């Protein structure tokens, strides 16, 4: 793919949808059409290239790919970005849309409009871009496109007349979508003669080649051997390689306005590349900075510590490397009495946290301990200033503040009409405030509630699913902070306070929570040679107690001649496992226990 395209022959678009509505599968069909001979790549969801994506069957990262197609006798370059559908990765969608002039809004014709359909459509509409709804999975026998057309008009105020239907599975209807993209989505603007301006929208680290920068050219032309300047980072590099993803990387000599591709400059300094930064020329007329991206606002925070304290610096490098590829992660160094030196990390949700932790371990090989996640809080200090709190341990003595504020999110919950009752009670049990109820169609409604983020983030989604036979979905806006009667519950293990285990919770709920946490800890912490008392306390008041009895028996019943090797290996494994525990005072606590504090409802 050596040649370049004038802007009028380029289309940049994202595929957006609710989770599992078929975005990555549709991208496969586009690839089939662009590279028909590519039969060897017959695996599904080709753009889900990360191991974790394939294992879990979901898209985690947006993936950009360039397609060359002949449409009505003309050569076109289509740059598509396949985006993730899960709420936790909405930031990826937001970033992707900023690199496009249009979006395909895919809707599963059997499931209809879901919470993330609405949320992602809003993101696109707010950016004033062309939104093209497409009904997918029309091959399903229970597809109901007519009803969904009604929902589309009702909820999103989008024209349903002439909406395209397709099956990403069979490929039916896909060519028509391509024609319509060219018709409806505007060509990118951009002046090839203006000074170079390119947006860094993503990056990855390659051990041999350094940072790989994913960029979209806005103005000017970037060429191999050019000396370029990263404005925000104030760094200069020579362009060693340019190219496009097809999805395999294909080098080229130039990238023109509207084009999307990658740049390699043997960049080893991770800090020089910031997603959202602008690239311009090093010498001559430099361009103005592009808008870049908004800072993501973390919904959950947790501590991440190396199991071996010597790995602290390596963990920092691992986090820097991960952040390059996932700019929504925020981290800062912290120390814990129990765990030593580590990092406080902010994530966009629990799934995001889980994925990030797993990527960290896999990609760096460092064993890590993760503390129980918490939502952010705000406190109003007695001197009138406010402070953000990202870990329960940081909540000062009650004499030092006037109020604790918790994050409240306005939540949109889409459910079948006959499930309204149980979901309304679920929301009010979770300290919610009802705002409104709107009918989407004859048998589906959208409920809007203000809910404390702390109540939503853990198991609310599971409860919502089980209360609606799987049909309920939800989305929520950025949190706002309101005062609430919150307390810090401290956990003492063998009389030693474990800062990494403390939680902030509602005062009325503290006792129940305390008991539940201790019960889990009693199961997760192995017996020691001494008795280990566990206590949960608010201030100086003990709310719950448990005791782990001393280890009194630890002996294998059967061991004969043939068992020696196995027995020895088992002992070695146990010893190795012990090394992976963190000690609180003289008590060794396994990683599981830190997370167990979560599973207490």
């Amino acid at each position, binding site marked *: 793919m050596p040649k370049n395209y004038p802007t009028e022959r380029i289309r940049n678009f994202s595929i957006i949808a609710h989770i599992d509505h078929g975005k990555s599968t549709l991208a496969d069909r586009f690839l089939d059409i662009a590279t028909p001979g590519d039969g060897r790549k017959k695996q599904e969801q080709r753009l889900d290239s990360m191991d974790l994506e394939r294992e879990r069957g979901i898209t985690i990262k947006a993936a950009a790919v360039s397609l060359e197609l002949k449409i009505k006798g003309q050569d076109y370059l289509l740059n598509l970005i396949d985006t993730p559908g899960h709420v936790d990765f909405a930031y990826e969608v937001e970033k992707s849309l900023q690199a496009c002039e249009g979006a395909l809004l895919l809707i599963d014709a059997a499931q209809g409009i879901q919470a993330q359909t609405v949320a992602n459509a809003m993101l696109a509409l707010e950016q004033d871009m062309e939104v093209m709804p497409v009904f997918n999975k029309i091959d399903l026998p229970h597809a109901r496109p007519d009803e969904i057309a009604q929902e589309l008009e009702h909820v999103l105020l989008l024209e349903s007349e002439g909406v395209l239907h397709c099956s990403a599975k069979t490929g039916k209807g896909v060519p028509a979508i391509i024609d319509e993209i060219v018709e409806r989505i505007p060509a990118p603007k951009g002046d090839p003669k203006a000074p170079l301006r390119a947006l860094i929208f993503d990056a990855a680290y390659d051990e041999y080649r350094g940072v790989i920068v994913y960029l979209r050219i806005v103005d000017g032309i970037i060429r191999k051997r050019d000396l370029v300047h990263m404005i925000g980072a104030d760094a200069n590099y020579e362009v060693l390689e340019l190219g496009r993803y097809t999805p395999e990387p294909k080098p080229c000599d130039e990238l023109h306005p509207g084009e999307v591709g990658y740049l390699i400059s043997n960049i080893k300094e991770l800090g020089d590349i910031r997603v959202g930064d602008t690239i311009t020329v090093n010498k001559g007329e430099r361009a103005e900075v592009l808008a870049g991206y908004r800072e993501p606002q973390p919904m959950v925070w947790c501590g991440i510590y190396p199991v071996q304290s010597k790995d602290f610096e390596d963990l920092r490098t691992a986090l820097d490397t991960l952040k390059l590829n996932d700019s929504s992660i925020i981290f800062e160094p912290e120390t814990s009495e129990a765990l030593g030196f580590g990092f406080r990390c902010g994530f966009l949700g629990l799934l995001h946290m889980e994925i990030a932790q797993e990527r960290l371990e896999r990609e760096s090989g460092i064993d890590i301990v993760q503390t129980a996640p918490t939502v952010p809080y705000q406190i109003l200090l007695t001197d009138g200033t406010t402070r953000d709190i990202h870990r329960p341990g940081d909540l000062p003595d009650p004499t030092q503040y006037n109020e604790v504020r918790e994050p409240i999110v306005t939540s949109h919950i889409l459910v079948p009409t006959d499930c309204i009752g149980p979901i309304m009670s679920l929301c009010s049990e979770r300290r919610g405030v009802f705002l409104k109820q709107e009918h989407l169609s004859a048998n589906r409604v959208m409920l809007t509630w203000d809910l404390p983020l702390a109540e939503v983030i853990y198991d609310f989604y599971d409860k919502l699913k089980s209360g609606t036979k799987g049909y309920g979905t939800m989305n929520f806006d950025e949190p706002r902070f309101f005062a609430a009667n919150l307390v810090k519950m401290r956990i003492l293990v063998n009389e030693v306070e474990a800062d990494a285990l403390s939680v902030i919770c509602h005062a009325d709920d503290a006792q129940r929570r305390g008991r539940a946490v201790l019960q889990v800890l009693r199961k997760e912490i192995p017996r020691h040679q001494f008795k280990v008392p566990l206590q949960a306390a608010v201030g100086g008041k003990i709310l719950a107690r448990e005791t782990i009895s001393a280890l009194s028996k*630890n*002996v*294998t019943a*059967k061991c004969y001649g043939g068992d*020696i*090797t196995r027995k*020895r290996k088992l*002992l070695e494994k146990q010893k190795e496992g012990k090394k992976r525990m963190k000690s609180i005072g003289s008590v060794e606590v396994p990683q599981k226990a830190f997370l167990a504090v979560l599973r207490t409802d």
Partner: protein
Amino acid sequence: MGDDNLRFFLDSLNEITHFRNSAAEVSIEANPESFTDAFATAAIESGCNRLSLGVQSFQPNILQAYDRVHSADEAKRAFYSARKAGFSRINLDFIYAFPGQDPKQWEADLQEAARLDPEHLSCYELAYEPGTALTKLKQAGRWEPEDEDVCQALFESTENWLSGLGYTRYEISNYAKPREECLHNLASWRSLDYIGLGTGAASWRNGIRSKNILDPRVYQKRPFEQSESEARLPEEALFDLMLMGLRLPQQGVSRKRALRQTGLDPAEYWCELFNQFKSNGWLEIKADCIRTTPRGLLLLDTILGQMLPEV
């Protein structure tokens, strides 16, 4: 195995090894349901002189939970068949610490077993070995093992009850009347050399631990090849010697023999650690032997875990 097969097998073995003239102990294991009069006679006539019967329990509900096809009566019948055929040394295998099992029921099982007057009893606490069905149930949260404190109490009362009935605990799970210990197992607990014949069998000879090939078809073709073989360094051999020897609460580990076999005296090798174990009340270090106290025996895996070399 049918009785004809048994005769053929042991006759052939005798042609090669002449074990009938030389062996101190020829032990055979059987399950009650297949141990018929004819089989018992065949075993005796082909040279066996000790029998180990997998009784497991006399309680129908436990036998069923453990997927055993025999009944308590069948087990007793097998025992009498063995006596009648001429077995003068018989062991009965039992399992205890089933979740919710009444300790009285276990005591009753032991009393009943003692009434048969076997020379030897093996009493294993129900174990959750990796990969077994019970372990999987347990991991899935569908099987709650017996409380650890109850298991400990059972471990201790088993010894009390049996010593009242004339049996001595000579190994963690093995009890015998005087001079009725199982010789070939004792040999492995004392780390004496042994050779295993047959698929997957383990050997320990000249400082090398090895295992035969497990797959019978492959084994047939290459009976002298090993699937695993590991030469143990003196320190490692010493650890293995302790791993096995400390299972014997009375004999313990002979320091002299350890020195002879590995060139190392454990009391010197683990000098510091053993002082700690001694003050914990876990080990007794004497001039000639090292052995666990009753409390140390209960914590043997903890003791061994600390003795493992740093890696």
